[in-house]
């Protein structure tokens, strides 16, 4: 399962950021968030873009927290058909 790669520009430009979040892995998302926060902090963005970036940053943190939330560690036993065939 290759993680989807989204650049910061894509994430900020996209009309619907939620669509880009789907399938976005934790590490990619975290890198994206770090880039976003750094960019916002740099003060280089015009005000409207800063606000949009801020909102998207909040969206991203929600997504990341969701990826690691959940209480129970689920263990599933898989049946190996290949071995049976051998």
């Amino acid at each position, binding site marked *: *399962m290759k993680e989807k790669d989204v650049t910061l520009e894509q994430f900020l430009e996209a009309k619907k950021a939620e669509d880009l979040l789907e399938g976005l*892995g934790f590490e990619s998302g975290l890198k994206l968030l770090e880039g976003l*926060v750094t960019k916002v*902090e740099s003060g280089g963005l015009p*005000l409207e873009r800063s606000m949009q970036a801020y909102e998207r940053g909040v969206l991203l943190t929600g997504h990341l927290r969701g990826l690691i939330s959940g209480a129970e560690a689920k263990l*599933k036993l898989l049946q*190996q058909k290949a*071995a049976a065939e051998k």
Partner: protein
Amino acid sequence: MLNTQSAEARIFSVSELAQVLNLALEAAVPSAAFKGEVSQVTRASSGHLYFTVKDERSQLACVMWSSLTKSLGFVPTQGMDVVCFGKPNLYGGNGKLQIVVSKMLPGGLGALQLKFQELKRKLQAEGLFAPERKRPLPFLPRALGVITSKSGAVIHDIMVRVRERMPSLQVYLVDVRVQGQGASEEIAAALDFLDQQKLVDVIIVGRGGGSLEDLWAFNEESVVRAIFRCSVPVISAVGHETDFSLSDYVADCRAPTPTAAAEMAVPRRDELISRISELERRLFDVERWMGPCSQAVDEQELRLQQQMKHLLQTMKLRIDVLERGLRAANPVVHLSSWKSRVDNLSARLDYAMGTRFKASIDRLTGATGRLHALNPGQVLERGYALVELDGGYLRDTSGVAIGTQVSVRLARGRFGARVLEIDP
């Protein structure tokens, strides 16, 4: 290589010949593994170990240098079966052939150890153990695959760690035999199976501690190749810390214990949360990143104010100029000048009119005076009287007789009179 021709071409010293023979030996047999029975073990004061290894028909003198004997792990004794690895050497000092042994193992395990070394060498040569091909472990796997016995300690230890670090992680277990006949086939098949299913981002394969025979499945070529071709990173956790299996060499990562394997595979949730929280904090620190923004706004505001001020001044100047111009064009101003013009004209007119009419007025005055003089009242004022009879005034004595009643009007008043005399 030494051939008869070149050998005959020159005459060597003994040392030279010994050297040439040594080089030839090393080239022909760079190293070899052999087994046999130990006899005549001697340890010199230098620490070096001198011994003979023999079989039914032959024997070879061996030496193991002191530094290497330290890693032996056992004491070679007379009559013991051993497996040795070493390289041939012609010791010029005494002209004796000896094998310089680098590794020695007790013979019981010899066959397996041999196989191990052979296989290791073969697979390494193929590049299966190359560090470059090892894949990095995913930062946060979406699911973890474990290939081990479902009843062993491995899966239990792994689950403990997983629950502790990332409770939300999905773990898939493929139950396999981890030793004995058919185990290696099951393990290899399990790797292919998980790979095909594309369910997991990382795999831990392993078993608990045991002897070399117990662990042997993880040294089998089939398992090693299955790990190599797996498209997902594999962590090998076979046996104890000190056990090294071929699976360990080929895997992307080697874990000394199943617990360590879980720690490698799964990040700590609390660490990730704190990283997110830290980024959140920085993001929410709106004032801090808005600061430069709001400062920019302030600066803009200031600039704007100054521009406005400047603009206002400019406008004011223009207005003054316009006002002055306007005032100059003001009808009120004009009016007074008009007025004076009118006054002027009117005066001139008056004068003109006055002069013109004076003559007429003089004539009129003259005429009026004469008229006044003709006023009967005026005549009466001069003392004359009007005699009235029958509604008419008398001018002569006709119509009048002695005794006629007449009315006499004077300038002021009248009286009645009777005619006493007539003088026609």
